[in-house]
């Protein structure tokens, strides 16, 4: 019996302490390294050009769904106190839970359409790699466990704020407190593990395109001109070579 407990402790230690740090370390190291060394590979790798109809019903629900779900998770992580306060009113709790769930459904529908599209359209199939299928697989796993959790372990927004947010913060503060997650049901544990696997593999897959979302664009001038050298300086004699 005692041996068993220790065994489980080692398992928990691996999944909820070693894996997260491994994932985060890899994430930062490889994304930066890839950006600097193989920047050319950072692309949305869009296939809309090859197939333009199913693309809408696949990519739009998927991306908006993911954004809603991720925003919910991020909010619970960053502002657990405010979240609990918001949820103290039952109606507001329902609104939050239902919108999160709808986001999840959007993601699932999008993902299913993505799978159908990539399996049925001959052109799109040509640009689908093994890594793409792996990404799709792990995302299906995440959405499956996430939706299961939302249905069978309800009011996740509240218990996320009270037990998962502290766990995640303990990771961030380099003082991992596995005790927050050990009592959780198996589905939630799988969901957490899945999340770290996504983070771990993120830098090796097409997911990196999320990191190059254009932002300076919104503030820049419409036209861009690049000069290969300072044209005014170069024509003045004192800047000529052999100075």
């Amino acid at each position, binding site marked *: 019996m005692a041996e068993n407990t220790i065994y489980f402790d080692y398992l928990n230690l691996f999944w909820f302490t070693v894996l997260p740090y491994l994932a985060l370390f890899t994430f930062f190291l490889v994304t930066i390294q890839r950006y600097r060394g193989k920047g050319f590979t950072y*692309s949305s*790798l869009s296939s809309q050009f*090859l197939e333009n109809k199913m693309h809408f019903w696949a*990519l739009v629900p998927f991306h908006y769904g993911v954004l809603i779900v991720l925003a919910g998770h991020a909010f619970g992580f960053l502002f657990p106190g405010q979240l609990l306060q918001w949820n103290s009113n039952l109606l507001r709790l329902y609104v939050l839970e239902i919108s999160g769930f709808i986001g999840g459904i959007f993601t699932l529908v999008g993902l299913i359409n993505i799978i159908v599209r990539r399996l049925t359209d001959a052109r799109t199939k040509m*640009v689908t790699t093994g*890594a793409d299928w792996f990404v799709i697989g792990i995302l299906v796993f995440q959405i499956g466990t996430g939706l299961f959790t939302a249905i069978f372990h309800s009011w996740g927004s509240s218990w996320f704020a009270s037990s998962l947010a502290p766990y995640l913060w303990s990771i961030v503060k380099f003082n991992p407190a596995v005790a927050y997650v050990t009592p959780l049901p198996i589905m939630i544990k799988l969901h957490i593990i899945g999340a770290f696997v996504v983070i771990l593999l993120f830098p090796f897959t097409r997911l990196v395109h999320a990191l190059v979302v254009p932002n300076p664009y919104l503030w820049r001038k419409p036209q861009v001109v690049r000069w290969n050298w300072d044209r005014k300086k170069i024509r003045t004699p004192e800047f000529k070579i052999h100075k």
Partner: protein
Amino acid sequence: MDVRSQISMVFHLDKCIGCHTCSIACKNIWTDRKGTEYMWWNNVETKPGTGFPTKWEDQEKYKGGWEKKNGSINLRSTGKGRVVSNIFHHPHQPSMNDYYEPWTYKYDELFNAPEGNDQPTARPVSMVTGNPMDIEAGPNWDDDLSGSPVYAQNDPNFKNLTAEQKAQLFAIERLVFFYFPRICNHCLNPSCVASCPSGALYKRGEDGIVLIDQENCRGWRSCVAACPYKKTYYNWQTGKSEKCILCFPRIESGQAPACFHSCVGRIRYLGVLLYDADMIEDVANTPDDELVEAHRAMVLDPHDPEVIRGAQSNGLHDHVIEAAQKSPVYKFVKEWGIALPPHIEYRTLPMLFYVPPMLPVMTTMDGDAKKNMNEGLFPDFDKARVPMEFLANLFSAGNTGKLRYALKKQMAVRQYRRAVTVGDIAMEAAKKMLIEADCSIEEAEGIYNLTSLCTFDERFVIPPSNREEAIEMMKDPLEYKQSVGFGLREEPERGA
């Protein structure tokens, strides 16, 4: 005044024979890689026709270019708000079906087919999927009016033509067409650059060539939707967009771009135009019927001492100013006013100009005798087989005045030269025509020379790029002595 230099182009449509040599030259150098097979940075279209990609001029469909609205200009579908909200799926993005699916033939089957009663055939196979396919479209699918009831009928430039004019155009034995070769216009107000979310597109300061930085491109494809001429293309293999680079490695070493160099009809001219960059915004915002004139007004006189001073103080090398003074493009566009910009109503201010074609406008039958002229000296342009409105929709935003001017001058030069060489037209009449066409004898000789007798060096006046100065400013020229020249380059390989 902000004087800048722009490598500009003129295509003389009267000389184009539609041989597609330019397209092949370009294809063999730049777009024979996987993912680029369908791209034609240079293509030649038959007009009337729907072009490549199909109906590219129909901005109701593709929503490219700029739009004048409430006193300012906005991108039609690729403004900042729209790009963000459409980032996952742009509804006006062309797909491969709007271009064509590239194909090859299984030539080996001609040799390896087992013996049998049938002739072996080479089946077409898709260059994307490798599957056998039926060819349903191609880059010049409606070449020479093939299938004109299906394709040419749908030319977007027919928008304000009467049913009668259209019927006449397609009447048996009155069919008429001309060729319309196209490359990137290297615009002064490019909508592709303005729409790029990653800031990967840019205009080169020194010569105005518009390029896509392959390292920074993230494949959002806004440029593809934004370019009203559909001259940026998405490489589906690398996930990056690509476009005509005006063969800048050739230009930098003093050679004409491949499509220019290989042109059989010698229709292409290339040279520097000096322009005032401060005017871009105002000119792009001019009402439709004044656009051609306003665009022309941006081009500065390279002989004007004030312009030369402005150019020098802006860092332009004397070589560039010299090249601008010799530029054949300046003559066609500014001095003679016979080269017009394509679809200037898209407001990107294209820097590729076209000399409109002298179609079989003139001859009418008067009983048994061919009648070359109407009552006046000039043929009746309004009775031309190709309606003036059609050409005006293409080259002057519907302004037939500008077009008439260009055609009239060309006509007068022809008659004048005919009087000189053949002599069956009275010189008096020819000279009268020249005066009526606002053309001096010197000008007529100039047009004649640059149209008919032009040498390679007259057609392409390429300024030296003076890179030696630039490199010397940044690096010691001997820095790489005894080492490997260019260092390591990254392979353009597709990301996972």
